[in-house]
């Protein structure tokens, strides 16, 4: 059997193992083919499934045309193996399935059956149900169109009335239209193999991805159906955008192995959002890069989105997460690029401690968090004991994520309140959880003062309280400056001379999200 899968340059496929598998497949085919009779299903090792028996053996290799890319967009094409995909032998006259098997890791398949007078053809599908049902793979992936029909490539019709060995190779090309869905399948297999390697197993939940030519539905993961959806529209088909596919798979992993509280919605890489969304999106990008690193691709720390147009280039945008692109925007726990960057630098950057600690926190700690964000990842990292040998403080600070006490501590009560100069800003952090920042200032009877927090970052949701000269009698308080601005503002006119106290703390009532955060505090005369 000619093994054209060996021509791939991808480092995952080495020549010698590939030849070995090919020889095994051929031997397996021959022995099954000569055993005759029965028609029962059997498996042969981990790499070959032979269904049925008889004196007809059909074998071949299945490949799809992949589009290679780098940070400038597409760079060319190459044929790669269609791994672990369902193979069916179909009766050409009535579409009945005569036998089924699956490809191995090099795209090879072989199947034995009894001779029949029916004309048949070979069909390879964008699904892994045979290996899943046989217990050979823990994941069940399907790539389908809008009507949940699975894609396939088929051979010509041929007769198997005579005993013998029949070779039928299959190719899914870009121009033929089937290359895209097979690329989605292969990329998701990369992702699933990564999860299996790091987690020791998968989940029985089906991993279902929707893509079809002309789809304008959007590229997203939805918790409603636990499914992935990829754009197929002419200006932005994502069928060959591997990093986009793996980003969405990262959301799926979060939903199936951990916890995700993202409110969802559109988000740009330079924007600052709800810290739950930033965590979810940053994790998803980081996870995709981790998969590509595990699979041996070059420059896995790049995210690349193309228009999907034919030919080389066609870049929409790309960015890297190690030394983040758009660096001045990649700051704070409320920016997804910043989140992806700190995770990557724990994994393979300045800390380089690998994936297992990250996975332990994500899988075993985050589900206990109330509103999952980078804050919870930070807490989990230390609670799980990783912080002592791999302290991420400096790389968090490099992205302006200040999970540290500010320089005015201890200032946790009216007795510890720091005197402030009117009109001067004081930079504070809420850290650790429940931290209170107290200040005091001298006020004059009849003067109006602005007491405010501003320059909030890292999700800070400030809540300020003004106390009388005894430090205990509450005069007034403010949570949010406005419906959309979670900083705080008190306008107050003193009714007597004296030293007054201000307490600042993270909002902790219903709907609270961040327990940490950074902000500036100022008292000024209006």
């Amino acid at each position, binding site marked *: 059997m000619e093994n054209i899968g060996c021509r791939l340059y991808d480092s995952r496929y080495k020549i010698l193992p590939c030849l070995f598998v090919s020889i095994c497949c051929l031997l397996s085919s021959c022995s099954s083919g000569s055993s005759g009779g029965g028609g029962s299903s059997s498996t042969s090792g981990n790499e070959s499934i032979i269904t049925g028996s008889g004196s007809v053996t059909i074998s071949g290799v299945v490949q799809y045309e992949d589009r290679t890319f780098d940070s400038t967009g597409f760079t060319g094409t190459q044929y790669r193996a269609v791994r672990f995909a369902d193979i069916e032998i179909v009766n050409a006259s009535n579409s009945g399935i005569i036998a089924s098997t699956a490809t191995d890791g090099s795209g090879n398949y072989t199947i034995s059956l009894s001779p029949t007078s029916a004309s048949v053809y070979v069909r390879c599908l964008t699904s892994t149900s045979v290996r899943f049902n046989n217990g050979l793979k823990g994941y069940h992936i399907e790539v389908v*169109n809008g009507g949940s*029909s699975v894609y396939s490539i088929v051979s010509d019709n041929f007769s198997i009335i005579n005993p013998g060995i*029949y*070779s039928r*190779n299959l190719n899914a090309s870009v121009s033929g239209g089937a290359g895209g869905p097979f690329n989605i399948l292969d990329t998701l297999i990369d992702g699933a193999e990564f999860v299996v390697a790091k987690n020791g197993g998968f989940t029985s939940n089906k991993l279902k991805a929707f893509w079809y030519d002309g789809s304008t539905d*959007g590229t997203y993961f939805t918790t409603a159906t636990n499914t992935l959806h990829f754009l197929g529209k002419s200006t932005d088909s994502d069928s060959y955008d591997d990093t986009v596919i793996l980003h969405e798979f990262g959301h799926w992993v979060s939903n199936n192995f951990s916890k995700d509280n993202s409110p969802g919605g559109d988000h740009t890489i330079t924007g600052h959002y709800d810290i739950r969304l930033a965590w979810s999106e940053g994790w998803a990008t980081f996870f995709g890069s981790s998969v590509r690193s595990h699979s041996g691709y070059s420059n896995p720390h790049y995210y690349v989105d193309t228009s999907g147009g034919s030919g080389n280039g066609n*870049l*929409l945008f790309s960015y890297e997460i190690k030394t983040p692109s758009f660096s001045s925007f990649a700051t704070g726990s409320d920016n997804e690029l910043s989140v992806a960057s700190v995770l990557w630098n724990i994994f393979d950057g300045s800390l380089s401690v690998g994936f297992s600690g990250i996975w332990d926190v994500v899988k075993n700690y985050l589900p206990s968090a109330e509103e999952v964000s980078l804050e919870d990842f930070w807490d989990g990292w230390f609670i799980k004991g990783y912080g002592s040998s791999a302290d991420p403080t400096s790389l968090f600070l490099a992205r302006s994520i200040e999970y540290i006490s500010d320089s005015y501590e201890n200032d946790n009560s009216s007795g510890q309140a720091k005197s402030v100069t009117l009109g001067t800003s004081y930079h504070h952090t809420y850290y650790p959880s429940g931290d209170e920042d107290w200040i005091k200032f001298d006020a004059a009877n009849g003067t109006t003062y602005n007491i405010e927090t501003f320059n909030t970052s890292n999700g800070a949701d400030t809540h300020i309280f003004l106390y009388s000269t005894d430090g205990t009698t509450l005069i007034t308080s403010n*949570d949010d400056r406005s419906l959309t601005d979670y900083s705080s503002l008190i306008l107050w006119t003193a009714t007597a001379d004296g030293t007054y106290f201000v307490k600042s703390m993270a909002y902790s009532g219903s709907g609270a999200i961040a327990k940490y955060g950074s902000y500036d505090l100022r008292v000024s005369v209006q």
Partner: protein
Amino acid sequence: MIMDKTRYKTQNSGLFHENSPMRLLILVFVFLISLSSKPLPPVDIIMELERQPEVPGLAIINVKVTPLIEQSDLNVQIELPEGLKLFRGVERWNGILEVNKMHTFQYQVYIPDKKIYEIKASVTLRLLTGETVKREEGLEIIPEGVKRELKKLPEKKGKDRGVIEFKGGDERKTNKK
């Protein structure tokens, strides 16, 4: 005043009063279902047909661009398929646009016959730090009376699912022994 954030975000309409089934439904939707979309570059583009064109005649197309970040250069371009002619509007515009403000570029395109045409527009934004990002959008002009025929893929019934079949035989490497 101390307010419950969940409450004040939904209390503005009678539809959302405390015991309203609508409020409960929306809360279930908001808290249980979320769509996680892919990352976007910091520029938004919307393409709209102002009104259905007479054919032959002029189609008025609005391309609405919103830069979400300061830029050193911004390029808006419209790409017409063969057979269409730009009657009015700038095919390629260069400049700088105000951040977070929607800017509309209007084009008048001559549609010669009753065919379906897809017009594409793109916006390329160069950040002050030098990085470049791009977004593209497409718009199909479907004249009145013309039906869009969906590309029908050959589909067969599989074991427990439909199967779309593409020809995938590799004649060069397939032979019967």
